[in-house]
């Protein structure tokens, strides 16, 4: 009997014991950082080097103010937003169309589906380098002394277009964005197709049967039945797309390298996450923390808006 009581007592803390490794690690690497980052963000000009000297920092919003008044940060912010706004709708619509098409074919469906999933199992830095190779002009674009305009420019040439300096020294800002948008969409497609296709395949077929009987047109079926029924999945891929988009960083490193921009204009395509990482080696942790909190705030607000909109529009 005593043993049984002991056992019950042990059961009480056994759960905590099992969870202890996870809890300890989370306390150190997740919970503490949340508090510490919050603290540092409000310590004016907190720099871990100056902190070593024992300097006391004032408490206030100075880091936020300085970061928000800094053109470099605004540039990172606008780059991030622009990439988000350009890539999320494009990749979502494209993924939806592909998923619907995939769902309407039988022969080779699995095979094609696998091909579309392939970009997912890649290293985004490595394949970014492939995209860079495809878009790069070999030689000096400005002076016209070019060995090769690169495969993409050649393809454009076949359709009668003029070569563009996509990402070289002195290339324009828009060509740079176009390269990034293409790469990011390419990279984002597989996940979205997978989710949407999964959603499509579980849609109740009765709706379609009813539509067939009514003789509803395909397009109408798509807009009136498929999209509404798919709305939870669409909401999901849009939300995750935005969250991922706001954290865009390594895909740009993949294509443009550590400089985050074409040679001669490093940082042109820098993003919020890049801004935070750049501040770390200089030990400007106060501003990095403020930037991280701003990023969190933006992601939070955008997610809330997305959820609000999708709740209104989602049909279960």
């Amino acid at each position, binding site marked *: 009997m005593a043993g049984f009581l002991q056992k019950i007592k042990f*059961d*009480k803390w056994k*759960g905590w014991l*099992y*969870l202890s*490794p*996870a809890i300890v*690690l989370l306390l150190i*690497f997740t919970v*503490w*950082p*949340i508090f*510490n980052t919050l603290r*540092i963000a409000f310590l004016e000009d907190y720099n*871990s080097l100056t902190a070593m000297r024992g300097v006391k920092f004032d408490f206030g919003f100075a880091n936020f103010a300085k970061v928000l008044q800094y053109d470099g940060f605004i540039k990172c912010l606008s780059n991030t937003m622009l990439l988000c706004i350009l890539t999320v709708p494009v990749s979502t619509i494209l993924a939806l169309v592909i998923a619907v098409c995939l769902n*309407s074919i039988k022969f080779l469906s*699995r095979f094609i589906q696998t*091909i*579309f*999933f*392939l970009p*997912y*199992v890649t*290293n985004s830095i*490595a394949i970014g*380098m*492939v*995209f860079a*190779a*495809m878009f*790069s002009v070999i030689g000096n674009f400005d002076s016209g002394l*070019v060995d*090769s305009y690169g495969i993409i420019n050649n393809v454009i040439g076949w359709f009668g277009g003029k070569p563009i300096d996509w990402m070289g020294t002195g290339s324009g800002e828009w060509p740079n964005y176009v390269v990034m948008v293409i790469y990011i969409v*390419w990279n984002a497609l597989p*996940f979205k197709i*997978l*989710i949407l296709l999964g*959603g499509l*395949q*579980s849609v109740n*077929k009765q709706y379609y049967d009813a539509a*067939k009987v009514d003789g509803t047109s395909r397009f109408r079926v798509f807009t009136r039945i498929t999209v509404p029924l798919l709305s*939870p999945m669409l*909401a*999901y891929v849009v939300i*995750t797309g935005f*969250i991922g988009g*706001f*954290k865009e960083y*390594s895909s740009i490193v993949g294509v443009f390298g*550590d400089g985050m921009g074409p040679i001669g204009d490093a940082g042109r395509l820098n993003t919020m996450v890049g801004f935070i*990482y750049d501040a770390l080696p200089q030990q400007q*942790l106060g501003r*990095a*923390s403020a930037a*991280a*909190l701003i990023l*969190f705030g933006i*992601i939070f607000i955008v997610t809330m808006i997305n*959820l609000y909109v999708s709740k209104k529009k989602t049909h279960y």
Partner: protein
Amino acid sequence: MSENKVINQTAEKTAAPAASAVTMAERDMAKVTAKQRVVKVLVQVALYTFLITMALIVLFPFYWMLISSVKSLEEYNLAIPTLFPLEFHFENYVEGFKTAQLGQLFLNTLYVGLVSTALSLVITVISAFAFARLEFKGKNALFAALLATMMIPGELFTITNYQTINNFLGLNTLGRKLGSDFLMSLGNWSNTYTVLIVPFLVSVFYIYLLKQNFMQIPNELYLAAKVDGTTDIKYLWKVMIPLAFPTIISITILKMMGAWNSYVWPRLVANDDAHKLITNGLRGADFTVDNMIHYPRQMAAVAIVSLPLFLVFLFLRKYIMKGVSRSGIKG
């Protein structure tokens, strides 16, 4: 919270059979008139044309990587690129491998991947087990708190972790004060494997995923086992792990892929040759020959780095796609 709900639904829906979409179409075929049949065929042709075109576009970067990797530099630099190599220069692979020092990088990454996956699995399994099977005070609050951390972007943690790993729990400062090299080395993690492994051992999402999976196993089994005097560990090992095996494999693969693809954190904390990971090494490698990037060698190195991922994909596609559709996280 609602995000998780969505994830959960997705998980169930993906599992639904894929083939049913077509059967209906077949049934309807009988009813349609000849004209409609023509339309149907045309639509199918259009569908295939579109899908195949898109598939080719999606595949093109891989194709370009492969053919570029065997071209000579002269051929690569031709004004009108060849779509198939004129001659094959497999030595690019040797040179690319050497230039990026992929051997060392490969071993580093493999080590980090294996150790972090193994440790992470142990922690995930026992944590999921505790949440799924044990009753204790504060369980629900704790679980909710864990899920809440998933909302916060990782960059927010990085800043403090970057400080933490240089002076873990203040051990480094303490060690220096006491003159203890051992304490100092305990506190100093930068340029070690530890720094690449430990901060990411716990993934709340994997715990959540596995917990859901464990919950589907009837509780009666556990109670029966307890009556038989089976220990928790034995039960976990004999019953739960086998039943949740597909999920565990998914987690393993995603975790390994994560190590293979990680770039940002290693770049900050492990820059020395002995600990550099493969992605960092590849991006940092200088393929310049005579002031020109030697693209074929670079592409060969990229192909080598991409190969293991493709192999894993080839053999474990099912688990990856399942895991991905549930997790929505890359690696």
